[in-house]
């Protein structure tokens, strides 16, 4: 029976794409951590910055 929850589906698919094993017992904690990280990521993402703004690490050849 496939899950109908998009976050659970994403976790299943991402684990498969990454080749990382996914014990069902780990899923609630992984989901909790992913939700916190996504919330914080959105906090950063919603802050507007110009397209030509350089990321912090600058590679020097």
């Amino acid at each position, binding site marked *: 029976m496939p899950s109908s929850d998009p976050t659970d589906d*994403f976790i299943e698919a*991402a684990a498969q794409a990454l080749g990382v094993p996914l014990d069902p017992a780990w899923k609630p904690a992984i989901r909790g951590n*992913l939700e916190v990280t996504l919330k914080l990521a959105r906090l950063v993402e919603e802050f507007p*910055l110009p397209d030509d703004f350089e990321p912090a690490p600058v590679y020097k050849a």
Partner: protein
Amino acid sequence: MTTDHSWSTASAIADAVRSGETTATAVVERCFSVIAARDKKLNAFTDITRDRALARAKAVDAAKEKGPLAGVPFAVKNLFDVKGLPTRAGSKINRELPPSQHDQPLIERLEAAGAILVGALNMGEYAYDFTGENIHDGPSRNPHDLSRMSGGSSGGSGSAVGGGLVPLALGSDTNGSIRVPSSLCGIFGLKPTYGRLSRARSFPFVASLDHLGPFARSVRDLAIAFDAMQGPDPEDPVCTDRAPEPALPALSRGAEGLRIAVAGGYFRKGAFPEAIEAVARVAKALSVKQEIELPEVHRARAAAYVITATEGAALHLDRLRKRAGDFDPAVRDRLIAGAMLPSVFVNKAQKFRRWYREQVLELFRTVDVIIAPATPCTAPSLGQQTFMLDGVELPVRPNLGIFTQPISFVGLPVVAAPVPLKPLPIGVQIIAAPWREDLALRVAAQLEKDGAAAAARLAL
């Protein structure tokens, strides 16, 4: 009769060895008996390097010229390479690595100054931790109250220095792992500028944010160790080419002539009363009235969190595939979640880092030093899972670093200075502009001189 140097500063030990009042061999022998007695309670050490330490002490005693750290015992977080030991980095998995062929360069530099490595120290698994708890080795314990956390991830470093096992230790700080244990264990810690000290031959965590630095019970000891460890290292591509800029010579100038402000806003909002009290005491001691706000600091913390989760996950991806069951579950689940975060967010976080850096550097045109709490509270109990921050119940493990994380995010140098509150100490961060460790150390020295900051001698 051997003098007990277990509560002496590193500089007092070096003076006693240099003057002939004692020998490095006597100091090291005594250090090992103190470790044998007290570490049963503290669980700070994971490895003892007795044979090499005694051989090294003999060499120091025989040398005509004795360095500024002559005979000073020190220990390192077990993510530093120590010749002959596998670099376990708090993990079960890394114990299977072959023994290191060489010491980490900062160990070499401290030993070149006369210091003597006596062992390696407990830490949170792979440094993804602010508690000092370790599922494989047991928790390092807080010397002020053995039922409480040492703080992490350099928990053994905080416990060993705070508990009088060694006067000097090294640790790493990615988001607060030097400053958090310094705060909870009531000692001084220095997280230098990003890129100041070589990270070669240490087990990494987040290349964008990793720093190494010293812990001690006096500011002078931090400065002596820092000065001995500076200098370029071609083995670490992030390490600066700047010539060493010694901090010790100007230490006695204290806070004279420096423009100091207290960080408000975010740094008050999440603070327990003890953190507010510690900052108020320090501000009073320094006669500081000015308060400033770091812009968008909550987003800086968020961006550091994102970069940590994803770079950490990338580092450990193959171990997660093959050895997931051998991780601490709390670390594993965070790393797996980090691996799943879409990469666009990481790039956004690195762009934000550039913006935030520019804003913070602008602030340093008007002030020399910023004071902020190091942790939101004093040491939580071992095993405590949550606490109330600003009216919200949050997990302890990631949130002990809410005040340190947005500062290391842009690589600013910070001295964590212990404010001796009762019943438990708590640290403040003394934050300076990049490459101005000297200023942060001068302010810490002033606070120490005035008694506003002090590392306690404990009955253990």
